[in-house]
Structure formats: structure tokens, C-alpha cells
């Protein structure tokens, strides 16, 4: 991961911009949303492999920051929603696309179904994914000759 970030830095012009945009695990809420408002019916369960991926990403960025390869200029969070017309459609999607990354506990699925059944006719189900966006500015590239020079000053 760190090597890839070095490759990205190499291809960027001096003071180039790196935008890192990605979801971060946080037991994403499952909500029932209707024209009258929304309610949280439960939360997904974070899976160890996904948490480990997040940690690896944060660790890699900290490392390249400490090396002076990139400097953080700006950071923000926002919600990214996935919508489904029914709880079953949501479950099918999760079984197919998020297997091994997000877990929908049976109790949460039941709570979602109950909340959806009780809600307005226009109610849909959604998952609120926490997104992180960070703007980094690339640092100076030290080529091998410069590094050697620094190690062995004349």
C-alpha cells in the first residue's frame, strides 16, 4: 500500500493533489426512510477483515505523511446512501455484494422488516455508509541521487 502511494506521488506534478475517498467501517445504520422522515432500525455488524482493511489504509497514510510524501490539507465526512424498495432486496444485495465485508444480523433484519411494514407506503430501506474524503498535497520527490547525497555529504 505504501509502495503504491509512492508510485502515485511519482506520477503527480510537484504539489499535486491526491484525493482519497472511501467508506469507513462504523456499524453502518440501517434506516427506514419515508416522506415523513426516517428511523434507525438497527446497525450492520463490522467484520474483522473490513476493519483490518481500514486500519491498514489509515496506517499507510500515516506512514507516507510521516515520510513527508504527502501533507494533509483537508478532510471531511459525509453519508453515502444505498436504497432498496424492500428489506428483502437489501438482504439479497448484501448477500451478493457485501458478503464477508458487512454482516446483517437476523435480529436487525427482523427489526428492519417490522419498521418497514409499519411505515408509510412510500417507505424504502437504506444503509447510511460513512464516507471519508481527504485532500493530500504531494511532497517533494527525492530521487536516489539526492538521497545518496544526503546520506554521504561531500
Amino acid at each position: 500500500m505504501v509502495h503504491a502511494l509512492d508510485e502515485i506521488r511519482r506520477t503527480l506534478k510537484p504539489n499535486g493533489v491526491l484525493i482519497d475517498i472511501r467508506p469507513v467501517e462504523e456499524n453502518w445504520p440501517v434506516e427506514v426512510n419515508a416522506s415523513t422522515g426516517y428511523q434507525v432500525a438497527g446497525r450492520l455488524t463490522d467484520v474483522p477483515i473490513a476493519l483490518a482493511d481500514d486500519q491498514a489504509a489509515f496506517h499507510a497514510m500515516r506512514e507516507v505523511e510521516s515520510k513527508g510524501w504527502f501533507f494533509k490539507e483537508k478532510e471531511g465526512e459525509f453519508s453515502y446512501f444505498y436504497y432498496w424498495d424492500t428489506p428483502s432486496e437489501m438482504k439479497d444485495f448484501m448477500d451478493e455484494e457485501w458478503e464477508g465485508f458487512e454482516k446483517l444480523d437476523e435480529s436487525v433484519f427482523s427489526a428492519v422488516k417490522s419498521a418497514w411494514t409499519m411505515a408509510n407506503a412510500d417507505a424504502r430501506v437504506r444503509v447510511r455508509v460513512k464516507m471519508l474524503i481527504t485532500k493530500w498535497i504531494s511532497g517533494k520527490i527525492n530521487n536516489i541521487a539526492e538521497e545518496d547525497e544526503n546520506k554521504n555529504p561531500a
Partner: protein
Amino acid sequence: MTLKDPEGSERKYLHKFADFAGQRILEIGCGEGRLTWKYAAASALTVGFDSDHDALRIARADAPHDMQKNVHFAEASARDIPFANESFDIAILAWSL
């Protein structure tokens, strides 16, 4: 059917964090180009790369007509990016770090 980000939050935040107009942009892990189409129109050049051959085929097929000249896709790995030094103004890690 799954509806993703109908509020357009991702597009809004992308444009809040960078001005893509006239820039040369490299997108790492572009997949099917879902994110690419949200910023590439104003760029001078956008190159998206991914190691997933099938996803790239979809990205190429889905390219909007007005972006076919300035958007290109390549099969590559981030461990060995096949472009020269200092080629791009902006790089985007698209859900890929």
C-alpha cells in the same frame, strides 16, 4: 434494485475538495467508472486504471459520448503505474486504499 447515492453527496464532496477543470487526472481503482463520470467532463485528460479487466470493459462501454475524447482506461496495478513522472495534476483513490 439498488439505488446508490441519489442525493449526489459523493459528487458534491469531490467537487468541493478539488477543481477538476482543465486538469490531468489519474484515477486509481476506477472499476466500472462509476466515480469517473462524476468529475471527468471538465478535465483536460482523465486516465482511470484498474486491474479488473471485466470492470474496465464496462467502463469503456459506458463512456458518455462527450467524454470519449478526454477519458481513457488502462489495465494496470497501483504497484507499478505505467505513466511517466509528474504526468498528472490530481490523483484519485476511488474507494481503493
